[in-house]
């Protein structure tokens, strides 16, 4: 009986959605849910850049809108539903914490299409997408090993989740490929975005001997500090050269535009289907900012690595990968760790002295 009621309700909603869709103009309404402010110069900012780009590209064919600063807790479900009720037919939820809320709303509105970034729950009308940022980290590691005088990288970590841990590992693997005794110091600031804390962490890392700073947080505070202090930094999410003209070596840029363009095209041609896209340098979802502040030979090394990864000739997690405890990690992907292993990575590789928090 319960199932019948739900099915009837869903059918009614679907009919309603279809009717309202049919009565509206041809414009496809696309909605975005952002976890932070569009001005964060980081994660959300890049999604917004892409949103503006697709609005420019598709002009009258689509109508985009967004909700920013959406809390990842109880409010998320409602906010997503607000977008549905405002007539949006394709909805992007751009943070991991929106996963369950998106899945719930997707079940409720089977005729609306949803895409969730960095998550793993999918449905007929719910696709997932993310970037292989670890590819960029590997290149950063190579550059860091070459440019660092002290041999120590300073890493500002947000939260010890697999995405961040795999980033640290990839960077160290890249560094170790050039300089086996490279070291890293990690500080967990327990936030994605707090410029004050990030600046303090940057300072602490530099004071403890790191002369290359990198981060998995969203603001430009560390880059700005590095510029002031005269050490090097890597930008995160967006090109932060403006904040670190002398310090930025490169940045990992989250370039969602080509992905969004693809998906909108599919949606406009009624060919949208669920799936999982985890794109790296090859798909251009991950882009490296121009290599700056480094001598030409380092630049060449970086560009060669970038080309090799893009062509598939080099995989950051190529086997054998030795974990911190000395044991070789099982090589499930043949010649390199498979996606599942990378997505759930919660160990450090050998050469990192810290312990992964809360293991």
């Amino acid at each position, binding site marked *: 009986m*319960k199932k019948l*009621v*739900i099915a009837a*309700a*869903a059918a009614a909603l679907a009919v309603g959605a279809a009717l309202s869709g049919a009565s509206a103009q041809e414009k496809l309404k696309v*909605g975005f849910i952002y976890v932070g402010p569009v001005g964060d110069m980081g994660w959300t900012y890049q999604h917004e850049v892409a949103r503006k780009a697709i609005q420019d590209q598709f002009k009258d064919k689509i109508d985009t*809108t967004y*909700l*920013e*600063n959406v*809390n*990842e*807790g*109880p*409010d998320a*479900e*409602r*906010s997503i*539903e*607000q*977008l549905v*009720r*405002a007539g949006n037919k394709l909805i992007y939820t751009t943070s*991991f*914490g929106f996963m*369950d809320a998106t899945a719930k709303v997707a079940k*409720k509105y089977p005729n609306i299409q949803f895409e969730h970034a960095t998550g*793993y729950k999918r449905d007929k009308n719910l696709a997932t997408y993310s970037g292989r940022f670890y590819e960029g980290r590997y290149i950063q590691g190579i550059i860091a090993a070459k440019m660092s005088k002290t041999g120590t990288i300073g890493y500002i970590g947000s*939260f*010890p*989740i*697999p995405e961040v841990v795999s980033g640290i590992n990839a960077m160290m693997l890249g560094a170790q490929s050039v300089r086996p005794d490279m070291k890293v110091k990690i500080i967990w600031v*327990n936030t994605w975005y707090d410029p004050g804390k990030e600046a303090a962490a940057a300072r602490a890392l530099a004071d403890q001997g790191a002369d290359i700073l990198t981060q998995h947080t969203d603001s430009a505070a560390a880059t700005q500090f590095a510029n002031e202090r005269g050490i090097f930094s890597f930008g995160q999410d967006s090109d932060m050269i403006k904040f670190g003209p002398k310090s930025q070596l490169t940045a990992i840029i989250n370039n969602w535009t080509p992905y969004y363009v693809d998906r909108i095209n599919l949606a406009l041609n009624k060919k949208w289907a669920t799936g999982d896209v985890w794109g790296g340098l090859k798909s251009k979802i991950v882009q490296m900012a121009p290599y700056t502040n480094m001598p030409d030979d380092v630049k060449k090394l970086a560009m060669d690595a970038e080309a090799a990864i893009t062509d598939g000739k080099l995989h950051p997690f190529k086997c054998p990968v030795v974990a911190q405890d000395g044991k070789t990690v099982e090589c499930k992907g043949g010649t390199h760790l498979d996606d599942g292993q990378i*997505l*759930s*990575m*919660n160990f450090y590789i050998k050469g990192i002295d810290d312990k992964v*928090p*809360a*293991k």
Partner: protein
Amino acid sequence: MRLALERRGERSIFMALASPVIAIALTLAAGAALFALLGKPPVQALKIYFLDPLTDAWAIQEIIVKATPLVLIAVGLSFCYLANAWNIGAEGQFLIGAVTGGWLAVATHGTDAGYWVLPAMLVLGALGGAAYALIPAVFKVRFGASEILTSLMLVYVAELLLDYLVRGPWRDPKGFNFPTTAEFDPVAAMPMLIEGSRLHLGAIIALLIVIGAAILLARTLKGFEIKLVGAAPRAARFAGFNDKTLTVVTFAISGALAGLAGIIEVSATVNHLQPNISPGYGFTAIIVAFLGRLNPIGILIAGLFLALTFIGGETAQIALKVPLDFTKVFQGMLLFFVLTCDTLILYRIRLIPAPKVAHGIR
């Protein structure tokens, strides 16, 4: 020329009733002005903010869902504030309630536990919140430490504790190492009132608490005691009421209700524990408590109204690109106007002309 307050002989009944209405009217006017300043059409913006959500069944449900934790916490806070015990840590008590109640859900996950799980979770949540609230209460009563600051510091501690638990010991082993617990089993989830909607049993519980609180404050000796201790501490002491005991009691009640709100919200909307389970309910509830003039029925209305501003704010963001900060400005202004109008209940405002003769003694 200066403003002076002149105490009225007795409370102005007119102002007591009209105050919230005038306050809302003033807020709407100020809001309209602010919209115009930002270049948004004032009337349309106000309509989207305040009227549109009321015409939509879904929106009304969402208002109730959002208001439920606010009202629950605010009723508890009103007990404290009436007794001059300033509990600013409701947010922390909310989180701890979610943790203690959620513990049972995590512990019984996957086992074939019966229907006793949810009620037990609610009880544990209330107890957890009460225990957490007793910390600042005891520090106040035993050592004289400011409960405002201790309860506030404990909010940060609670946030960090929840973060630690979901990243470490309680993390879902099948969750790709992301910081959440496993989904709560159906027996650990709050039942919905309407199939397929988000309207849950918690709303009924909140309503019952409101009614219970109203009766307690208006009709029982305890309620009288609470009100007297706050309004006239000396008289209360003469009557034999102990303000220290009352501080502890009201903090315990407040913590219990906040903790209850926490576990209800988690089991009804999110269905698992994660680092982020409250968009600041504990602090918003303080506004609700004052808007409702520390009266349970008033709090019910204030909670619904404030929830309305949240929902309307989101709709306005989508439709008119009004930034979310606007909602905060609205809420702040509303509280200001309510406090202003409330003064007029007890005082009249007089303009005193500048004195022509200088006062003698200095």
